[in-house]
């Protein structure tokens, strides 16, 4: 561990801590409050997702993908299923594509809501967290109408979805969107423009664009550093080309480009974009049978595929190798939170302990996905 000098102190922001967003141990070398080095220790939540998926059949892997990123499991399913359909060249009916986009975007709003709410908690504001969770509950109810589960859905299957939308899902969803849009203004007045919140997050934990790309940071964290990269626009999958929405990037609103406030603000703007997509998707959704393209026996041809999709935390990549048998030969999940956490050490040098918590919160990591 190296000789610990006089006032150097090793502080364990340990596996059990109110704001590590999961089971993560940060071994922080500090002198006084200023942080000189952070060594994250992972693996507390390692459940051998990749080993499991070598012993279960292709469709049985889906419940495991749910449990990796349990805050956005719809998008995790979506990524796995899109990769599998590319491997097996299955063309999915139009209605299923629309349902998947609707579910993916709703799940993105839900995940961002929780990320922003918990970020307010890390900075010390209790009330926005409650408001955001109250609205997230309404999204979880919609998921429950459709597939029965609130958090871990196993809803998207290879070649389709398990259940069609309930009859009045469109009205329920549009009611939610109409109710939810003015709420964003309230969150902004309460938290986003709050001077103390701005003081605590502006110019804190700046990730320059090249460091972000070199650390493989993706998603809102990368866009906050000014790099305009979104898999939905740059490597379009499913029917995302049909919708017009734009990609919000960081603008250094209250401080330098790529600081904690930008990461927070990009997520808030992304919620507005997701609402735009949802409104278009709900208007144009065709009818049709969702079980039509479900293959009876899933036995993909020999070969491998690497497919990326845009999860709320960034590029969620699935590298699937199949050897012709109904059991996957190798499934590797490239987790966006894993790369986001890797840059924590370099970014939070020289900041104070309370800033480390702020930076960690702004990266919006989920330990289920990091440890797999």
């Amino acid at each position: 561990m190296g000789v610990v000098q006089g006032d150097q102190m090793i502080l364990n922001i340990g596996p059990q801590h109110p704001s590590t967003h999961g089971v993560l141990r940060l071994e922080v070398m500090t002198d006084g409050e200023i942080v000189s080095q952070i060594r994250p220790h992972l693996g507390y939540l390692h459940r051998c997702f990749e080993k499991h998926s070598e012993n279960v059949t292709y469709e049985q892997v889906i419940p495991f993908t749910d449990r990796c990123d349990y805050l956005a499991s719809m998008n995790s399913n979506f990524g796995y299923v899109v990769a599998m359909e590319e491997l097996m060249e299955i063309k999915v009916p139009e209605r299923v594509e629309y349902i998947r986009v609707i579910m993916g975007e709703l799940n993105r709003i839900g995940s961002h809501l929780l990320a922003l709410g918990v970020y307010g908690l890390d900075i010390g504001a209790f009330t926005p967290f409650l408001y955001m969770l109250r609205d997230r509950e309404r999204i979880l109810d919609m998921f429950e109408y459709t597939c029965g589960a609130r958090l871990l859905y196993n809803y998207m299957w290879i070649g389709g979805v398990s259940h069609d939308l309930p009859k009045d899902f469109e009205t329920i969803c549009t009611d939610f969107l109409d109710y939810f849009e003015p709420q964003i203004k309230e969150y902004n007045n309460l938290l986003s423009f709050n001077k103390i919140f701005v003081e605590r997050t502006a110019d804190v934990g700046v990730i320059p664009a090249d460091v972000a790309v070199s650390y493989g940071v993706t998603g809102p964290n990368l866009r906050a550093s000014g790099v305009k990269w979104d898999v939905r626009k740059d490597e379009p999958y499913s029917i995302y080309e049909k919708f017009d929405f734009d990609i919000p990037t960081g603008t250094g609103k209250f401080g330098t480009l790529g600081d904690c406030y930008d990461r927070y603000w990009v997520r808030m703007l992304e919620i507005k974009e997701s609402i735009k997509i949802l409104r278009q998707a709900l208007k144009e959704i065709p009818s049709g049978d969702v079980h039509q393209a479900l293959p009876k026996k899933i036995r993909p041809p020999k070969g491998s595929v690497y497919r990326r999709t845009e999860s709320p935390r960034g590029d969620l990549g699935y590298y699937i190798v199949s050897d012709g048998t109904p059991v996957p030969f190798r499934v590797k999940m490239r987790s966006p939170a894993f790369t986001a956490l890797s840059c924590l050490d370099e970014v939070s040098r020289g900041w104070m302990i309370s800033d480390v918590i702020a930076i960690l919160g702004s990266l919006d990591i989920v330990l289920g996905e990091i440890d797999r």
Partner: protein
Amino acid sequence: MTVDTLINWFVTLGDFPVLSFLLAVVISGIPLFLVMALNAMIAVYVERKVSAFMMDRVGPMGQGPGLHAGKWGVLQTAADAIKLLVKEDTVPETSDKFLFKMAPYIIFIGAFLGLAAVPFSSTLQVVDFNVGVFYIIAVGSIGIVGIVMAGWASNNKWSLYGAMRSAAQIISYEIPAGLSIIIPIMMAGTLNIQELIAFQSGSVWGILPNWIIFNNPFSFVAFFTFFISAVAETNRTPFDIPEAESELVAGWMTEYSGFRWAVFFLSEYANMLVVSGLAVAGFLGGWQSPIPGLFNTGLWGLFWFMSKLGFLIFVMMWFRWTFPRLRVDQLMHVCWKVLIPITMFNIFGVGIWKLIFG
């Protein structure tokens, strides 16, 4: 006032001055402790309900079978009290046991002494010092010794962080608090709290009560600087950095549980009481009634004092559930670079105002 009357009464019985003094002090101390306990009970319940209502939830409600929390969760505080009394308060093995056990009592003494000078009404005041305001400010800083002792004794890094932060915070916020309480003293010309309140009787421009807050613009600003530094002194949001839940888990209180933690809790709410009592007495006309002419006889004084006190404590809770938390260096920035210059300017302003308008 009660201590003096008791002493005079005992002396008439028989001339043993030391014993009568001790008796008087002990007898008038007991209601003080009751006020503290009652205040903590009510404040905990009100805090739960206020925070709940602000977050679109309803807080503790008495639902469910068997033992539950009373009609609107009224028994919740009783449940808390029993829990804290019954719960085992552990003393960590590696901690400095003597200091660990002493810390709660020192913090309690800090709050308890301060309460002695709070003027609940024209007659209801335990001791009427002729240097009341100075006494409360001085006694307010005893608590820091207890906090640092608690932080150091529990021998864990988080508590040490919490203690260091709270020491820096309370000491540095003593200055703006002291400076902004000078303004009522300058205007009333006395340190004695009862005379300070008496000075604020009558009305100005007919309808407005003659409180110091309405007296001139500088004292109006001085009330807010005093209130902000008072919030910082009792470690409440947005200055609750010592026991920042999301960083230091519970700061210097982490290792405490059971009754010792209850004492900390008691003295936190008592500190809030003392500090807002001083704010009310200094700026909002103590037990004077807001309508100048009417309702200022006998028990009305107590009612007005308690309602103003209640409002200020509610505002402190309102702060807690709305604002995020400052960082330690920002806290220092606000104190040294914002509050102190403003209070200096206020003192200068009030001086000029008194010279011109007498």
